[in-house]
């Protein structure tokens, strides 16, 4: 009788042990492999029609869909400089925001302490850079290509908005967005490489 109980039990134990031998994907990922670079664009935008850009002088910190603060840490400065360098490498000229730039470039750090969804529809609806910042007070922001991403940790978002056509359309339209996610993305030492990777997958983003 004992034999009849022991043998099936042994099978169950063996199968459970086998299940415990599952290869764990996260154990085989380097810190760099954890990173995900997401970019999207307004498919109607003609990126060669833009010649100049201005970039924010600080980074908006968003926690659980709420603007926490606008700040400028050494890491933020590195991200801003890296984005500015990428734009200039693609032929865009950096100008002051008072010099009527064609594109406005903003950076945001997004944190979520719980499993929440960052809905980019709301993200643009409650955009964290007042249109006054770009010299178009009261103009609403909007985007035609927003997506929904689940964010459970930190992310860095870079947004390009069309200032050249804002006066005519009375709107500030998003034309490109990039998101960097993964382990330890808010990191000064990897900031430039991450920004370079983000722009590398958008070859259309250039003046000619």
């Amino acid at each position, binding site marked *: 009788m004992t*034999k009849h109980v022991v043998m099936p039990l042994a099978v169950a134990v063996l199968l459970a042990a*086998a299940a415990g031998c599952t290869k764990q994907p*996260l154990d085989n*990922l380097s810190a760099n492999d954890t990173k995900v670079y*997401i970019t999207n664009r307004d498919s109607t935008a003609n990126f060669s029609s833009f010649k100049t850009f201005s970039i924010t002088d600080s980074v908006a910190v968003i926690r659980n869909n709420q603007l926490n603060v606008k700040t400028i840490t050494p890491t933020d400065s590195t991200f801003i400089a890296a984005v500015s360098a990428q734009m200039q490498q693609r032929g865009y000229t950096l100008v002051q925001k008072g010099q009527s730039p064609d594109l406005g470039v903003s950076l945001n750090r997004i944190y979520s302490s719980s499993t929440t969804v960052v809905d980019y529809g709301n993200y643009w609806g409650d955009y964290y850079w007042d249109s006054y910042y770009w010299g178009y007070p009261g103009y609403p922001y909007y985007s035609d290509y*927003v*997506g929904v991403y689940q964010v459970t940790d930190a992310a860095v978002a870079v947004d390009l908005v069309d200032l050249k056509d804002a006066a005519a359309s009375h709107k500030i339209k998003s034309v490109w967005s990039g998101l960097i996610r993964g382990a330890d993305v808010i990191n000064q030492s990897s900031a430039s490489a991450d920004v370079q990777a983000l722009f590398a*997958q958008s070859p259309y983003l250039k003046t000619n």
Partner: protein
Amino acid sequence: MKKIQLAIYALVACLAVNHVQAQNGVLKLRLDYAPAMPMGSFKTDITNQAAWRSYTGDLMYYINDRWAVGASSGFQDFYRQYPRQVYKGSDGSDISAVMTYSIQTVPILAKGEFSLIPGTHTVKPYVAVGVGGNLVTYRQFIGEYDNDKSKFGFAAAPEAGVNIAFGPWASSASLNIGAAYNYMPFNYAGINNLDNLAVKAGINIPIR
């Protein structure tokens, strides 16, 4: 030359000897190591790498010298990691990531087995078929972000192999060698099935 032929005949006779012991009503436990190679669209769309962490366990009741019925279960661990590349998101976005698939299956099957040679020969080829369900744990990792899905679906497994007894058939353990085609429909995220071909090697242990 004649002596060699006689020796071969004697060996074959030994292997094929009919044991006087009856085998009716014998309960046997079969444990197999069963590495599995993905087949069809599972191979082309998800992974072409064999699941080396794969095992099966059968509990079979031999009704007579030809027929056995019982239950079969097992475990398969499929894994594939693709180096970083850019994927097109459903919202039109470009997503650069390391993509990893981790898929485990636990089939639970009712099984019937038919011995191709009647009697209690030492070497007994067989054909079998198992029909039942399959618990699938599917995980797709985009970087470190996973997309999980667990499903219980249909499964069937035609099988062929041979049992080689170490002694009197009914009372002795035997070596088992075979192959099974695991038919496992799985409709999710563009995947149609998790079909695979398992090569099995293990032991049969009489437990009653």
